[in-house]
């Protein structure tokens, strides 16, 4: 036991002290946070303003299509033919022509632009015209817009999960997102840490240190110490990520809110000027980060984090043992390729299945894939935030434990023979023979 700990300690310290580990651990959350911040920035700030010239032959729409901070509509008093002629020399991006008989022929709108018209502009203009026609027709029928607004009821459903613990508000969106993220992180980490174990075993073999070590301790202790050491590196990384992310998100909402407010004010000014004094109320935007935090807080976070750590460890142990066996069987990294693929296949498959399970978390595919130890870590993590019966969870966890005990046993048999074999690249057939070698 003591020797396993010694190996574990070395493997852990060697990795954690590496510059690449420190950089990755700090950079990953910063990068994802930066990405997220940039998206919001892009969403709230107007980047590119488009000027649209409207030639309204019907005379019904002047000033009716409201400018936004992205689109500026203006209504110059010129003839269509002149506007068309001068369009290329003007600073307008789009020329919209509304014919006089628009009420009779709503499909008659023409849009001109130098390089084609984006779907968004087309949509914006069509909508505005549609709304105006609707207004006119309603007024003709004796209904004002005010009456219509009052008749509209906003329907928004709250999803509530109903189980033994009673009703609880849940957020399907957040649950799906969290499940997806967990599956993705598991997928990446099983690959990364699994191959790390493999590479480090091959390295010990090629540098011949392995013979010195196993003249001091049992091969099994060396293998297990290494696998556990790398597992701890993964856990450390997760822990730091969680801490950093929580830290960033508690600081972030304040900043985000200010930015959103500022953007809101700018937008209000723009609207006012375009409307010519018409008052607009700006609803104080709730910070998007706060919204996410709120949605996430409806989930059973302790359960999710607990399960995530369990499935990370279980899945990692299962696969890293197999990766380790490959690392022991070959002499150099180049030879690992052919053996690695069959091991990666179920991981990739599980990640593929996870995409389906996101849509149908209670189907039979979801059930079986979350029971089989080779796919269960990734698939089960998708389902857990959405709620999984306790017996299914227990069964899946039990099977995973059996699974990794099995692969570790298998790997240790191959490992103890493989690390002393040099020269020819072994075949799967030879490796299966190693399983039954004596001592």
């Amino acid at each position, binding site marked *: 036991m003591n020797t396993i700990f*010694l*190996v574990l300690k070395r493997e852990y310290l*060697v990795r954690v002290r590496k510059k690449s580990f420190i950089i990755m651990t700090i950079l990953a959350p910063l990068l994802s946070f930066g990405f997220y911040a940039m998206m919001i920035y892009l969403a709230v700030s107007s980047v590119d303003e488009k000027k649209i010239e409207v030639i309204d032959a019907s005379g019904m729409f002047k000033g009716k299509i409201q400018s936004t901070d992205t689109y500026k509509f203006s209504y110059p008093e010129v003839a269509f033919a002149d506007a068309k002629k001068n369009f290329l020399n003007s600073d307008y991006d789009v020329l919209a022509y509304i014919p006089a008989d628009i009420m009779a022929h709503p499909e008659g709108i023409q849009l001109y632009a130098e390089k084609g018209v984006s779907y968004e502009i087309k949509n914006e203009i069509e909508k505005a015209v549609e709304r105006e026609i609707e207004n006119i027709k309603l007024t003709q029928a004796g209904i004002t817009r005010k009456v219509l607004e009052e008749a509209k009821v906003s329907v928004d459903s709250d999803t509530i999960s109903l189980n033994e613990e009673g009703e609880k508000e849940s957020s399907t969106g957040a649950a799906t997102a969290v499940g997806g993220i967990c599956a993705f992180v598991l997928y990446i980490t099983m690959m990364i840490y699994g191959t790390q174990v493999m590479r480090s075993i091959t390295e010990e073999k090629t*540098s011949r240190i392995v013979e*010195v070590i196993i003249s*001091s301790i049992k091969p099994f202790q060396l293998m297990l110490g290494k696998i556990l050491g790398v597992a701890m590196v993964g856990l450390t990384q997760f822990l730091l990520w969680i801490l950093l992310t929580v830290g960033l998100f508690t600081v972030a909402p304040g900043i985000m809110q200010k930015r959103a407010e500022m953007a809101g004010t700018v937008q209000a000014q723009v609207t006012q000027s375009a409307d010519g004094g018409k008052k607009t109320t700006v609803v104080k935007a709730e910070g998007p980060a706060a919204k996410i935090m709120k949605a996430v807080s409806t989930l059973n976070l302790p359960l999710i984090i607990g399960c995530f750590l369990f499935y990370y460890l279980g899945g990692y142990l299962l696969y890293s043992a197999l990766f380790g066996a490959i690392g022991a069987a070959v002499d150099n990294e180049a030879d690992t390729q052919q053996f690695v693929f069959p091991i990666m296949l179920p991981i990739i498959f599980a990640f593929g299945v996870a995409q389906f399970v996101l849509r149908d978390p209670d189907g039979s595919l979801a059930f079986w894939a979350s029971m089989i130890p080779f796919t269960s870590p990734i698939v089960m993590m998708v389902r857990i935030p959405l709620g999984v019966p306790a017996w299914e969870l227990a069964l899946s966890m039990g099977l995973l434990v059996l699974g990794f005990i099995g692969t570790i046993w298998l790997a240790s048999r191959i490992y103890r023979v493989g690390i*002393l074999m040099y020269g020819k690249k072994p075949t799967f057939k030879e490796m299966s023979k190693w399983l039954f070698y004596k001592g």
Partner: protein
Amino acid sequence: MNILETHHIVKQYAQHRALDDVSLNVPRGCIFGLLGPNGAGKTSLIRIINQITGPDEGDVLFLGERLKPDHIRRIGYLPEERGLYKKMKVGEQLLYLAQLKGLSEKQAMDKLKTWFIKFDIKTWWNKNVEDLSKGMQQKIQFVATVLHEPDLIILDEPFSGFDPINANLIKDEILELKQKGSTIIFSTHRMESVEELCDHIALINRSKKVLDGPKLAIKEQFKTHTYHVDYQGSIDQLPEQFVLLDSKLTEDGYTRTNIRIPVGASVNDLIRVLLDKVTIRSFGENIPSMNEIFIKAVGEVPTT
């Protein structure tokens, strides 16, 4: 008292038998040479003693007890293929290896200090192994092998990779370890170092033990009972019991002749006869070198 005994060891690999009924006795406190051509099975035997692999048949006894995992701490092993963690610091690595052998960190530290002073390598402590020359790495590995003061030290080709000065340093260390009471098994192709260091030898050829015992006894066994004499003049006739073998001229004008005398006959008689006939410059017995014994027993030239 034997520190190590192997009884009828058999090790079978898929296609070939690496060890076939090998029994050895290694007396305590000696330097034991384990000889044999490449592929004879030396490494297989060493791995069994180190409990890296197990024998298919037979027993290994360490100080009279059947080999068990605990014994590993009392054995130090320097494999033929040297290896250290390349990206690990020298000091840290030695501490790690010593702890794997059961020393506490403090014990390891104390012992390491002595060795670092002795070899005058204090400045290497914080260097990465890959920044050291091959000879320096060998020194480090030697320290790692003997640091935990094992009762039995197994050295596989300990001098390969050392320049003559460092090889001498290691040789002196081996002798010092022997003096302190350790037993050393060393496996090598270099017969001159066997000649110099070993008290006992065993020779393995094609998976079987072909020879073992104290070095002097084996030399006795391989003696041809021939003597050489360098002289001026000519020996044309000798009494019947002495057989004249080949003669040749030396570069400086003497003749060297080999003469065989029967077992039990007196050497003095031969000398007396010779004194009458020629002017003798030197006279001596032809004692077989380890190299000759090796070639005779194995039937091939040792290769390094």
